[in-house]
């Protein structure tokens, strides 16, 4: 994977005044996601983009901008682990939808980073609900590989892509089987062949552009997956398919695998835990939407946590580009169905960072972590709570979105100023 400029590097390069700013968030119920647990009446000091100090008895540095949490909650920002934020503006308008490339001749080599638009209007509307980081997923195109995913911040800034080439996404579910030719055996055979192409790269391609499954360019792009340098995210729901995926992983060391979807993952929970394979799943998915997901249940999340599986939550039943902001509600429902608050909150903050290997920078509030801090007016998992302040990389962000501007325009319908002149 390719780490892009970190906040620290940006500071070193540009040393902008905004980044040099010091903030102190005071008087909060601070959720650290570390051994420090929850600190009542805590203070978080953020300087030069990073968290400097955290605790109940931390002194506010002179000159710091103080944000009084007023007894509210202070948490790490939400990390949405499975989204298409910034790839889609209006889903049904193909001219604004850059998530998939059905007509491309390439697959694994496609890089979602090239499609990401930090100016998309759904980014501010997601940010103001407490989401500060997200993993970006491509849709699949002509074969079961969607291409390379990336990690972004919700700052909306030009440098908000902070890591590219983070993982490769493949669909091995019923829909992937359809893409591969009509059956699961076709899908797994294609995957085996693709791995063979990558394992045999370059030699296999010395005389030919095409391998058994992939062309030269895509085979090259799959090499880091075969070598275990990048995780392979596999979309599967049915318990039998998950077992097949575990077998594939075991047959192809040192491949790292992440399961996405996982409707029936709870039925394979012990095997997943033993294999150390994490699962991205939507905790409110409970209807048998297809014959692959007959085991869907609101108890799935708690059963996975109980078995020791590493679980991060998604908003798959809604969508990932407009409704990623509902992650906290989905996590709250997990709590209502048996998950501990700490596990549910970690599943939308620290655990996604762990799954993508960036948990030394994101997902917790501790000295040295990025200054992604959200101040809430109540329990962040409660549907009636909302952020009052969102800091990303140690900078306070604008709490305005196109939606709030529309709201403000139409708040007073008796005002005689024509609507188009209200800004």
């Amino acid at each position, binding site marked *: 994977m390719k780490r892009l400029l970190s906040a620290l590097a940006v500071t070193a390069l540009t040393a902008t005044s905004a980044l040099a700013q010091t903030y102190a968030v005071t008087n909060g119920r601070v959720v650290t996601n570390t051994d420090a647990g929850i600190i009542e009446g805590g203070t978080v000091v953020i300087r030069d983009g990073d968290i400097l100090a955290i605790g109940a008895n931390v002194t506010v540095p002179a000159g710091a901008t103080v944000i009084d949490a007023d007894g509210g909650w202070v948490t790490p920002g939400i990390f949405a682990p499975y989204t298409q934020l910034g790839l889609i503006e*209006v*889903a*049904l*308008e193909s001219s604004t939808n850059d998530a998939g490339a059905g007509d491309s001749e390439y697959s694994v080599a496609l890089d979602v980073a090239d499609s990401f638009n930090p100016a998309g209007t*759904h980014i501010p509307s997601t940010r103001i609900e407490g989401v500060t980081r997200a993993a970006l997923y491509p849709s699949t195109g002509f074969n079961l590989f969607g291409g390379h995913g990336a990690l972004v911040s919700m700052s909306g800034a030009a440098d908000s892509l902070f890591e590219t080439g983070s993982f490769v996404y493949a669909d091995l579910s019923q829909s992937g089987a359809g893409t591969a030719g009509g059956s699961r055996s076709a899908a797994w055979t294609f995957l085996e062949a693709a791995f063979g192409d990558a394992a045999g790269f370059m030699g296999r391609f010395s005389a030919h552009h095409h391998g058994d499954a992939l062309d030269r360019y895509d085979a090259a792009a799959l090499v880091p997956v075969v070598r275990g340098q990048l995780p392979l995210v596999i979309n599967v729901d049915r*318990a039998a398919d998950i077992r097949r995926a575990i077998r594939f992983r075991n047959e192809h060391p040192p491949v790292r695998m992440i399961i996405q979807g996982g409707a*029936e993952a709870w*039925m394979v929970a012990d095997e997943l835990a033993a294999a150390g394979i994490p699962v991205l799943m939507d905790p*409110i*998915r*409970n*209807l*048998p*939407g*297809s*014959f692959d*997901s*007959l*085991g*869907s*249940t*609101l*108890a799935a999340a708690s059963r996975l946590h109980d078995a020791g599986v590493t679980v991060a939550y998604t908003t798959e*039943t*809604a*969508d990932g*580009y*407009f*409704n990623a*902001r*509902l992650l906290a*509600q989905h996590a*709250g*429902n997990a*709590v*209502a*169905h048996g998950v501990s608050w700490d596990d549910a909150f970690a599943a939308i903050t620290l655990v996604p960072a762990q799954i993508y290997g960036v948990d030394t920078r994101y997902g917790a509030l501790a000295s040295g972590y990025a200054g992604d801090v959200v101040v809430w007016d109540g329990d962040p*998992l*409660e*549907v*009636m*709570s*909302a952020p009052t302040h969102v800091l990303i990389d140690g900078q306070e962000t604008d709490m305005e979105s196109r*939606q*709030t501007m*529309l*709201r403000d325009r*139409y*708040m007073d*319908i008796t005002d005689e100023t024509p*609507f188009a002149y209200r800004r």
Partner: protein
Amino acid sequence: MTSNFLKASVGLAAVFCLAACSDGGSASSGSGGTDTADDGEVVRINLDPYPSTYQPMSSGTTLIQNATIFDGLGGQVDDGDVLIEDGLIAAVGQDLDVPDGATVIDAAGRYVTPGVIDIHSHLGVYPSPGVGAHSDGNEATQPVTAEVWAEHSVWPQDPGFEAALAGGVTTLHVLPGSANLFGGRGVTLRNVSGRTVQEMKFPDAPYTLKMACGENPSRVYGNRGSSPATDMGNMAGYRAAWQRASDYRDDWQEYWDAAEAGEDASPPRRDLELDTMMGVLEGEVLVQMHCYRADQMAQIMDLAREFDYQVTTFHHAVEAYKIPDLLAENGACVAVWADWGGFKMEAYDSIRENLALSHANGACAMIHSDSSGGIQRLNQEIAKALADGRRAGIEISEAEAWTWVANNPATALGIADQTGSLQPGLRGDVVLWSGNPFSVYTRADQVWIDGAMAYNRSEENTQPVRDFMLGQPGEGDQ
């Protein structure tokens, strides 16, 4: 049929007559459902050929004590009691006497509300699992299909019904989809298990007509190179169809006037599509119209004036907040999401404050799901809408917000005299929540439908399981 339907029919008895009317027989003519002219009798149209066979489950007397109560009309009773007797709400108040033989439930710390009503569902017509054979919600073969009835597509074994029940839903309105200008009739259901859809039909609920604005019909038919392909094509399609319905109604009226005067008259040829639309013009069938944008809703309200009918509810209505004054003037309600939108251009201006802002500015507003997932958590959806409204400075109480899942949808479905609030004499549709239902952590503990316990979270044998789920991996799981 009961009084509710007949009340709505006052003055129309000469025009429409129910199957039970003395001059309506069971014999039907070749046109299907028109009672035959026999010995000079006046031909009538059977308005209820697929009658409800719903029978409430057996129930006893239940007294829920010491709860916080939202009555569904905007009222709140603290530390209150609800008495359910003979399937009906018998009393709401404090310190009610305990009737002999009553089951008494101590609900201290818990909340009681009327059952949740979802005015926009596709359960049964787009059931789980979503396989090809189950795609029964859109008769997308021509843009005007007012002759199709959603109840003829409802699969009563949809596991989505029991999931909605666990979320406190006691009544739901199932609609055809929005591919067509006139999508067909909707049906209001009790959220009970039945072998047949007739066993689920809400007795005497008015019929509804699903119509659709905007992108869906113009996309579906435009992509086929047929009309409508544009918004103006949509409007032309509605107008042409309403003109035919108006002529049809005139023909029947002329026939009935003549026949009742003893003149020799032949009835018009029966047209099932125009029957439904004539029902709208008579005020018998309620229009439930999918419409997102403010300007489109304004066009439709003019259309309704042109052909002299009423739009009962605009569904989705993501831009209702832009025109609450117009909606109020026209007496049109809006059924909306808390925060969904963005998926197509006409949903692009969705805002989280839509429900609270429309409500506060005078529109009759309510929540809806349009989703087998969302219907399970409508309490959370109104909680979000309420919180967003409050943060924008709109003061609305929790009890008032509960009208968004209770009396308001009941009113828009024409069943507010039967359910949607905890008034004595109404159906015993009641939810006992584990805590404040505006919290994400709260779940429905028990749900009564017509006074019978339909769902009990702590008793597996009081949790329905549809046929489809038997022997499947998820059987019995929620």
